[in-house]
């Protein structure tokens, strides 16, 4: 019975991982830009939610989405337009571009982290929102975790539907498969890549808001979430939306069960073991067509 509860907790944790990784997969899958400053937008949204509920008006933190998501969207669009496009034009091949992008986004990571440190200090913060127990299928769960899990599912389904059934979505899928061919059939690759990159940033903010209801965060913890999201994206396969959620769930369950059965001090080691295993067995990801 305890094992079942551990499994359920793993599912909730995995939903959170999938949620965090959704936006990164959109950015890396469509725009082919590995944004290592991704977690900073996540943490930024955590802070905005925190200030919404602890500020002078004490509003519902869910409302902060209307602020943080548009800000993240605009900032990511600007980053793509003004920082990434010069690199894309300069790079002779994808390898050279990757190296440049890794360095620049690491630079952005440090700039954002430094700005957050200067303004909000490095203290751990957190707030209490919807932390009431819910009885579900014989186990007890916190409502805020359940909300994040449902949010993850809803966003994944919405993203899937957009990609599958709209013109915009088919353009994005075409770019994911082959940018050159997409531009040959009349897709404005640069415009749509910028939009996908910006939408990925907005998803990072949305996931940050949802997750901030039950984690504590500080100016320097963004990197951890970038790393987790990256592991999930690489496990799922670049550009696979529903795969992202499934890979997140897998990672969460393995981490939770491993922590319970082996040792709670070794969760990162378990994460990395899984990550290495996937890379060695299926380097293109678990949820890609062979």
């Amino acid at each position: 019975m305890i094992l079942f509860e551990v499994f359920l907790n793993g599912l909730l944790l995995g939903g959170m991982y999938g949620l965090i990784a959704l936006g990164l997969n959109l950015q890396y899958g469509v725009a082919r830009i590995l944004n290592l400053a991704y977690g900073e937008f996540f943490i930024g949204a955590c802070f905005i939610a925190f200030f919404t509920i602890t500020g002078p008006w004490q509003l519902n933190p869910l409302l902060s989405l209307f602020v943080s998501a548009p800000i993240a969207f605009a900032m990511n669009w600007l980053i793509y337009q003004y920082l990434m496009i010069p690199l894309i034009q300069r790079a002779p091949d994808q390898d050279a571009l990757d190296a440049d992008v890794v360095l620049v986004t690491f630079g952005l990571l440090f700039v954002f982290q430094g700005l957050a440190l200067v303004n909000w200090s490095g203290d751990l913060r957190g707030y209490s929102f919807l932390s009431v127990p819910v009885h579900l299928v014989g186990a007890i769960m916190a409502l805020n975790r359940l909300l994040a899990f449902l949010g993850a599912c809803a966003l994944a389904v919405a993203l899937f539907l957009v990609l599958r059934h709209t013109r915009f979505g088919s353009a994005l899928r075409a770019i994911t498969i082959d940018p050159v061919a997409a531009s040959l059939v009349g897709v404005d690759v640069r415009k749509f890549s910028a939009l996908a990159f910006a939408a990925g940033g907005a998803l990072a903010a949305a996931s940050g808001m949802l997750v901030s209801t039950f984690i504590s965060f500080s100016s320097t913890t963004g990197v951890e979430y970038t790393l987790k999201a990256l592991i999930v994206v690489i496990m799922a396969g670049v550009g696979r939306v529903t795969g992202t959620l499934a890979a997140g769930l897998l990672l969460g369950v393995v981490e939770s069960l491993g922590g319970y059965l082996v040792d709670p001090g070794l969760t990162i080691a378990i994460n990395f073991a899984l990550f290495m295993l996937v890379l060695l067995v299926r380097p293109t990801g678990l949820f890609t067509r062979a």
Partner: protein
Amino acid sequence: MALGTIVLVLLPLFASNYVLSLFILLYAYVALATAWAFFSGATRYISLATAAFFGVGIYALAIAHVYLSIPLSLLAAAVVGFLVAAVVGLSTLRLRGVYFVVFTFGLTELVHQVINWAEIKNRTVTRYIFTDVSNVSIYQTLLAAALLSIVGSWYVSRTRLGFALRAIGEDETVARHTGVNTTMVKILCFAASASVMAFVGAVLALRYSYIDASIAFNNTWSFQVLIAALLGGAGRAWGPAVGAIPLVLLSEYFSGTFPRHFPIALGLCFVVIVYFLPGGITPLILRAYHSFDASRMLRVLRTGRLPEGSELAGRFRAGVARLNGRWKI
């Protein structure tokens, strides 16, 4: 060159303790950045595992110095670094590009957690280092390490091994087809560079009185070493050393006055390198050096006039004309 080395060797005789510490830090960075560029610069496998090997060196020394003499413990640290990197390399060096970066980035955290876990099982969260090694000997050891790593990196770059490394960086598939044993070359050089990192960590650990896992495995080392190497330029053996100087001065300045602003400066360094200095500082220095003409310079100094037809004279004259136009109304 030789004169400069003599001055550096004799420096502890007349420098204050603060200057000595600054130089110790500088040599540590020079050795680390040179070791990093030796592997990552040539093969273009961007490694962020510097802090992991550095920390392994610290722990190796902390454990070994109880049983062995200090020089032997330092040697042991280098050997442990080599072995750990060889094991890591066996599994990770088949990853390419971004995957490799991500894995090495996480490696520090992974080793940190595993050692922390082992230490808690062992009921020793912190370890104490009791030695009577003076600052001057640390200074000399690190100076030797820095110089040897530069000379070693320069020497290897002229051998078949160095050529094979560069071939892997240019195109790994082609390198393999022309008969380079790429796996062997990569693991050997990765491990050699890691053993230097572990050695530097071990030497610096002599200055700490106690250590724990979060002191030893600090990701900042990986980033600062990466920046030093790229700022200097990873294409030449002495390039990373050139980059380490401004970086150490910058970090010294910021940690003294605005510790919270340091990440911003570090981040801007990354951005500046990528957009404005893709090859680092060394190409600029080389260009200045090659265009330097001593006899012409002497003539200019003697006559006090720029030679006719030189680019500088033309620009100078144009500038004067522009100023004249602005002011002569």
